[in-house]
């Protein structure tokens, strides 16, 4: 009897402990969507605190297993609905413009190419010509004579969804609220912006923070503020403050279903299968002073797909009109299957490269403090294979756009002197050159095991990127293969993103073992570029930060580079700027703290023209040019006013 009882108890304990182990180990989700995470970060890169939360949010969501819903024909009229994929992953959490954890991609709450569907910025940035076009604002903004204040006016026609006009006071109050509740926007800009004041009903003055000499600390970031930060209604904000009792956490956690907005779309329906926005037919932008008409689609619908593959199938079937995800081998959809699918450019690289996914060296790893080792690995890598295989040619090659710190857009390419750094720009695959370099530095195979030693210790590294980020993994494999060819033992390892992100972004201590060569992103296109990207890649201000979502994760320090990065925002002479940028590129390509593996578009913009047509494409004749940003981002939203039905 006693034995039986003992057995039963033992059984209960074992079962319980097993259940607890099972709970502690989350069921993994295989494919983590790479694109969204990176894009999200790029668009909000100036706002460090916000970035952290956005990224965590997106990744958390990918752990949830989502069911691919059936396309609901009949639920929404197909001829009035524009379908998207690749932006929203997981269910929407909220509609609160002060929160950074809404997981509401289609709503958009700021960034260089702000998604102006629901909330609007004074200006819209156009990545194709680098200009900021007035949206809520009336005419261009201007600096005062000593460049310490920016002034602009709001349009007379600009109205909130409740019919009241958008005023300068709204903008000023939005800023005050960001500061008061320490949001990402507040924390990221308070070093540069002193105050925002409403001069009269419609006129706003942004006062920049000044340095000890009375000069604006960072004019670039101040001028970028007007196109990357949304205006939120003062009356609604006060309502929100009232109901949350001025509590910071509560204010940020409010789902804000009652939010007042100025944009052309708002919530129609949202659950864990899809998000639908409906047009506000009283949208102020139909006034002649802005668009002169309403955007064409009545609904913007985003079905929430399980992974890229499911989204790709939906695009091919015509259930998705605008695709913002990595569709590998997208050209086969039209070449082999004759589907009415097109991209911004008809030939490779199909899109316009805006960011530089880059492999960073851990400069504290054994031997990686030697420029010879860093350079040898970087010049031995087979970049054409990375671009052809990992990216399926959806990136410009390094023959077309030689490496620097600039993205492939003509505007940025013109900002440095190509001839001056020509000798430093390697094309890759230079196995003999790499071997010679190492031999010359005395890093040779002394014990005959086939691997080189530095000071008697074998050079062996782990190259890494997050698990499931397929194009990055494929790229990292090519990097590892290059090491083997030059006698440096590089193996690969792919930790889960949740682990990877915490390790890589901790810059206040040396990176742990296993992170010798690791991949991260760079900033995309924006009004502060290429300066902002270079700052992220090279500035030592990030070293020592406990949570560093900006860049320089390999912890590179170069005082001259810091000096140049600090000086550029205040420099207005174009020739001098070019000189400074050229010097930075020179330093970067000489020291090689990291090396770019591919170019990547700001958005993967692929469209299926079964229902809608007249999407932006190269030479489409639009003036100003509409950028290929999924008909939603920055000046790209102009696309919504241009598209037409294939069969009206």
């Amino acid at each position: 009897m006693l034995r039986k009882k003992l057995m039963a108890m033992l059984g209960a304990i074992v079962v319980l402990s097993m259940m607890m182990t099972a709970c502690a180990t989350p069921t993994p989700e295989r494919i983590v969507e790479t694109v969204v995470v990176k894009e999200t970060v790029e668009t909000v890169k100036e706002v460090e605190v916000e970035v952290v939360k956005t990224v965590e949010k997106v990744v958390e969501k990918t752990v949830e297993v989502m069911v691919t819903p059936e396309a609901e024909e009949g639920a929404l009229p197909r001829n009035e609905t524009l379908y998207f994929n690749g932006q929203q992953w997981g269910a929407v959490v909220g509609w609160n413009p002060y929160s950074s954890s809404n997981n509401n991609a289609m709503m958009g709450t700021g960034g260089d190419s702000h998604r102006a569907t629901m909330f609007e910025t004074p200006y819209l940035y156009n990545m194709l010509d680098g200009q900021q076009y007035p949206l809520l604002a009336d005419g261009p903004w201007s600096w005062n004579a000593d460049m310490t204040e920016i002034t602009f006016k709001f349009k007379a026609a600009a109205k909130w969804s409740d019919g009241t006009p958008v005023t300068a006071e709204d903008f000023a109050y939005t800023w005050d609220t960001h500061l008061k509740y320490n949001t990402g926007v507040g924390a990221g800009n308070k070093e540069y912006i002193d105050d925002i004041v409403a001069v009269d009903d419609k006129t706003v003055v942004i006062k920049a923070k000044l340095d000890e000499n009375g000069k604006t600390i960072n004019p670039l970031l101040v001028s970028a503020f007007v196109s990357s930060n949304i205006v939120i209604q003062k009356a609604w904000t006060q309502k929100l403050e009232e109901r949350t009792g001025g509590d910071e956490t509560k204010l940020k956690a409010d789902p804000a279903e009652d939010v007042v907005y100025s944009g052309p779309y708002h919530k129609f329906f949202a659950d864990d299968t899809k998000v639908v926005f409906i047009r506000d037919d009283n949208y102020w932008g139909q006034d002649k002073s802005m668009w002169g008409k309403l955007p064409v689609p009545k609904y913007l619908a985003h079905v929430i797909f399980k992974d890229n593959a499911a989204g790709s199938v939906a695009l091919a079937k015509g259930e998705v009109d605008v695709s913002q995800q990595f569709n590998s081998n997208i050209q086969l959809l039209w070449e082999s299957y004759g589907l009415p699918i097109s991209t911004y450019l008809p030939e490779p690289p199909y899109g316009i490269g805006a960011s530089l996914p880059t492999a960073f060296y851990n400069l504290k790893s054994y031997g990686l403090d030697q420029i010879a080792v860093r350079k040898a690995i970087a010049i031995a890598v087979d970049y054409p294979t990375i671009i052809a295989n990992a990216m399926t040619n959806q990136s410009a090659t390094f023959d077309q756009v030689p490496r620097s710190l600039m993205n492939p857009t003509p505007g940025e390419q013109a900002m440095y002197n190509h001839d001056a750094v020509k000798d430093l720009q390697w094309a890759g695959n230079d196995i003999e050159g790499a071997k010679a370099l190492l031999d010359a530095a005395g890093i040779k195979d002394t014990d005959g095991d086939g691997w080189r030693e530095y000071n008697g210790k074998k050079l062996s590294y782990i190259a890494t990127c997050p698990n499931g980020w397929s194009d990055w993994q494929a790229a990292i494999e090519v990097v590892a293969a290059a090491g083997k060819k030059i006698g440096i033992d590089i193996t690969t390892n792919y930790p889960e993103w949740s682990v990877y992100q915490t390790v890589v972004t901790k810059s206040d201590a040396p990176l742990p073992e296993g992170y010798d060569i690791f991949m991260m992103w760079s900033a995309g296109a924006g009004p502060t570029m290429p300066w902002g990207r270079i700052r992220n890649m090279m500035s030592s201000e990030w070293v020592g930060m406990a949570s560093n979502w900006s860049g320089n994760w390999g912890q590179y320090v170069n005082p001259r580079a810091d000096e140049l990065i600090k000086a550029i925002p205040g420099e207005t002479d174009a020739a001098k700027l070019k000189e400074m940028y050229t010097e930075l590129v020179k330093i970067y390509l000489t020291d090689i703290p990291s090396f770019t593996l591919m170019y990547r578009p700001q958005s993967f913009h692929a469209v299926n023209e079964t229902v809608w047509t007249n999407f932006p494409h190269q030479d489409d004749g639009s003036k100003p040019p509409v950028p290929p940003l999924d008909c939603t981002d920055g000046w790209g939203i102009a696309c919504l006013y241009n598209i037409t039905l294939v069969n009206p």
Partner: protein
Amino acid sequence: MKHTLQQVFRSGKFIFGFSILVAILLIVIIYPLVIPDPPLAIIAQGTFFEPGIYVNVYDSIIAPKYTLNLEGAAAKRIASRLNSDDRLAMKEWLVAVGIPEDEIDIEDTALLLELWETHFDPKTQIAGMTNARRNYYIRLNASLEGLLATEAAIIAVKNPTTGALEEKSVVAQSDFVNANKVANVRLLPLGTDNFGRDVLTELIAAARVSLQIGFVAGIIATSIGLTLGLLAGYIGGIVDDIIMFFTNLFTVIPGLVLLILISFSIGQERRGATTIAIVIGLTSWYWTTRAVRAQVISLRNRDHVNLSKLSGHSIVHIILNDILPYIASYVVMAMILQISSAILAEAGLSILGLGPRTTEVPTLGLMMNWAMIYYAHTLGKWWAYIPVLVTIALITFSMNLMNTGLDQVFNPALRD
């Protein structure tokens, strides 16, 4: 023993299954000796090259030329660049720009091209035409260039000092090379995968690793199952209770779930092929235990066992000499099943991304996993995954067939 083997090899099913398995084993062993290429070497720049013979273009220019005057060569050449759909599409365009329909004869290539060349302009705006369609016409137009040319192509090299092009050789339309005379010809019977690796070489290496995983896992599972089953069945009592308690516990927990949890928690850096094999072995022994125990219980009171006990033999001696031989045939059969299910389990785990560390060794499951990540199935790149499926199916099919064959031999009730 000899008699048993003779009997076994008289079973048609067993022989069929056995020969498939031996054939696979032989291929796996011999192929790498004949073609020693590293299975994970990235040879192709680009993804999913179709199966076929790849002839080096540069070398074929230098290779000796043979003139073959084949009938229909020109027609074939034209058809390869302009099919009937393209002709219809050209007509559609021409009609749209105002050419009367009866003036267009899509069968007359020369006439059609002439009309096309005079009227096609990529900038023309045609009402209702999508950008995708416009891109199609631009591609079509580019492919039509020189379609009807009969003159030879000229191969020129750049003079390194002047930079001018100098004629080096002439390629006439009737020139052929003998593929055997071209220095570099690569046969890719199953094309390449998303990394640009030779699928056949990778597949064979993967089959080998998967078989190894299967054997290791099968042996581990069978030995644990056999030992516990023998002990539980023969000794009985509290030993039986304890062993059966754990066995039952494992039976009710779905094996795959346990497998997934363990693989996930050991982390990718430690997930090698052997680790995975051990994990699979450790989670699949329980049904062998149950079956062996049942058999042993029916054996332990037989006369020869009692006789052995009376003779004072030790438990180990009795188990090894008086019990094991009677269940040996069953154990072999069980092991075959364990091996085949371990191969399937590895494939299942790898498809979930929890298999052995990516790209250190190829396994069948990893090949499936990457083919899926790069949409081979939706893009119609069958060579990246169907051969893998067929291989898995063949291995498990052959083993199950052997098992059925053995069953018929050893189980008198099933003999015909």
